[in-house]
């Protein structure tokens, strides 16, 4: 079978450049989306833990709605919903409409933040109360306790799930092709649809995503190895 040679055929020339630009967009969306998502998720978790009750309720509702609905639907509503609403309310002349890439990045960040915040919440729960009390008694502020005690301690528990989540976010970027963000899947699908070369396009996608996931996993393992000195602090 010449599938292998036809795959290489798609990897140079115009097709190759298009795939490469799609890959670049995917990586930017993924990295920026997961960093912003994790940061936002951390603040959600902190606000829910230390903030007043109503804030906790509000954020919990936010987290459950974002987690509970498919990213496809969120991306769709974010991109198409705004203009629809504007048209329904007026003539559509004053209306903030997002570019696909910006809508995608915003959606990815918000989506990721809901999941990340739940992971951090589990991390907070797992830390022995005594450790936090110990920090308080030596005069740490709440923020110092968070940064110096809680964060390093919970990382061990949370890290593998964080890597998992980050990998899932990578795969969710593929959904953004539905709002015509020109990421990897969008570009590779063009080949599949144009020449009906679906086997080739799927193989390319599988290999590229797998490589990205392995890189992400390797970074995660390196981080775990560095952080393992926090483990087994007792006995």
């Amino acid at each position, binding site marked *: *079978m010449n*599938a*292998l040679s036809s795959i290489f055929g798609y990897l140079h020339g115009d097709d190759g450049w298009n795939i490469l630009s799609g890959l670049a967009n995917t990586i930017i969306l993924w990295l920026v989306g997961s960093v912003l998502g994790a940061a936002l998720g951390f603040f959600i978790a902190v606000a829910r833990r230390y903030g007043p009750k109503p804030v906790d309720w509000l954020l919990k509702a936010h987290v459950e709605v974002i987690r509970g609905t498919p990213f496809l639907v969120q991306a769709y509503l974010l991109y*198409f919903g705004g*203009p*629809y609403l504007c*048209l329904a309310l007026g003539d*559509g002349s004053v209306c903030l*409409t997002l570019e696909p890439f910006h809508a995608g990045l915003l959606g990815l960040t918000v989506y990721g933040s809901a999941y990340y915040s739940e992971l951090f919440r589990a991390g907070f729960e797992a830390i022995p109360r005594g450790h936090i009390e110990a920090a308080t008694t030596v005069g740490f502020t709440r923020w110092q306790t968070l940064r110096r005690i809680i964060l390093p301690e919970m990382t061990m528990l949370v890290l593998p799930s964080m890597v998992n989540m980050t990998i899932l976010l990578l795969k969710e970027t593929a959904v953004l*092709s*539905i*709002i*015509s963000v*020109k990421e990897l899947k*969008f570009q590779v*699908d*063009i*080949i*599949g*649809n*144009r*020449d*009906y*070369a*679906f*086997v080739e396009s*799927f*193989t390319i996608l*599988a*290999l590229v995503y*797998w*490589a990205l996931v*392995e890189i992400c996993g*390797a970074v995660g393992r390196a981080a775990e190895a560095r952080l393992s000195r926090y483990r087994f602090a007792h006995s």
Partner: protein
Amino acid sequence: MNRRALINWSLALATGVVLGTALPSAASADVLETVKKAGVLKVGTETEFAPFDFIDKGKHVGLNVDLFEEIGKEMGVKIEWVTLPWDGVLPGLETGKFDIVAGPATITKKRLERYKFSPPIAEATVAILKKKGDASIMKPEDIAGKPTGAGKATAQLAQLQEFVKKLPKQGEVKEYVGFNEAYADLAAGRIAGVANSLPNIAFVAQTSPVFEVVQPTFGVKTYFGFPENAAPEYASLNDAVAAAMAKIKADGRMGKIQKKWFGVEFDTPAEVKDPAI
């Protein structure tokens, strides 16, 4: 070193596994015989392509359903539908999960290299869909300078791009993952027109109150056909389907079905050997 070996191994395995799907199936028995013996012709399709295949009130209906009903009668077999997303349909055809695909697809040179196509079932020539009441677009040339769109990697997109290039003022041509998303952006006001095959947009305009077709069509004449497996053991089946369709065309049943779903009848050639694109 250990990790690198692992990764290499994994990649090799994945390549092998994925490419394995591309291998022709080992069964070389004549497919027509198998179909006749079982009394069932398996047809793969997607259900997001009105008016050919779509879901109305939870039921799979469309031109393809009616047409294959007739083909089944001619061949003396029952039709069994397998509905999948379009991504999965053609790999299914290649691996023998079903015997023919009810697409339909615009017949192009590149696609003919890989698949066979049934006799054409309708014209696929392109026209513009606009928002109802948009007086600024009365003929195709009026889209000059305005943003338009089509499904990515479709024959229709290529036609639109060609057409826009020749206009005095060129507006942006946006690409969508599917035509339904392009319609959504048209409704949302981000683009002024969507280029798609006349049968499809005629049906859209008929079904939805917010859209309208801009006549006439533009670009080169193209046709829709059903993708078929090009392997030799499928040859007799493909011939049998072609014979059945010729009969259905000749006695006027095809025209009736087209009228029912498109509102118009199309004159289609018996076979497209050398497509214009």
